[in-house]
């Protein structure tokens, strides 16, 4: 049953990868990669139970976080072409400013 679930997840990942390769816009690709990442998290989680090593779940947790950061970084790069342009167009920064 774990194997069947893994195979289904792999099929989904393949579909997401096909969308990422065919585009047509950059945003389609990023969205597909995001979906691929979510499925990777689930695949690792299923694999943890398939192999009986539940400590592997830590990796799934890390992947969930890194996936999100990756999407944010990719979007920022696509939008501005660099990482240092600020998103705060009106210069209204209050919270989150370091003390």
């Amino acid at each position, binding site marked *: 049953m774990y194997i069947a679930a893994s195979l289904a997840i792999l099929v989904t990942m*393949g579909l997401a990868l096909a969308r990422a390769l065919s585009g047509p816009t950059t945003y389609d690709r990023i969205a597909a990669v995001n979906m691929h990442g979510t499925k990777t998290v689930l695949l690792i989680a299923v694999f943890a139970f398939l192999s009986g090593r539940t400590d592997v779940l830590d990796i799934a947790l890390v992947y969930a976080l890194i996936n999100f950061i990756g999407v944010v970084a990719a979007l920022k790069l696509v939008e501005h072409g660099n990482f240092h342009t600020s998103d705060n167009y009106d210069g209204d920064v209050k919270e989150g400013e370091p003390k």
Partner: protein
Amino acid sequence: MIIDILSSILLLVGAALGIVGGIGIHRFPDFYTRLHAIGITDTLSALMILLGLALQAGWSIAAFKLAMIFVFLFFTSPTASHALAYAAQHSGLKPKLDQK
């Protein structure tokens, strides 16, 4: 025994929903509609798979970690979708709307 059957059903249905979402991103015509298909894999599919695994784990640290994975996905996936949609709209990508 009942728990085993229930968790198998949850796992398999969840994984199947993932495939439905995968079909969705190929059938839907433009970027914004595809985001909705991705929404399926991010919410119900992930929820069912993780719930199925949590039933197998019982009350343990593994179950807590599955819950944390779910919480992270639950907060990050809509945020990522929103950021994508916002960036796409900001860059001038027009959605194909229904003209009626």
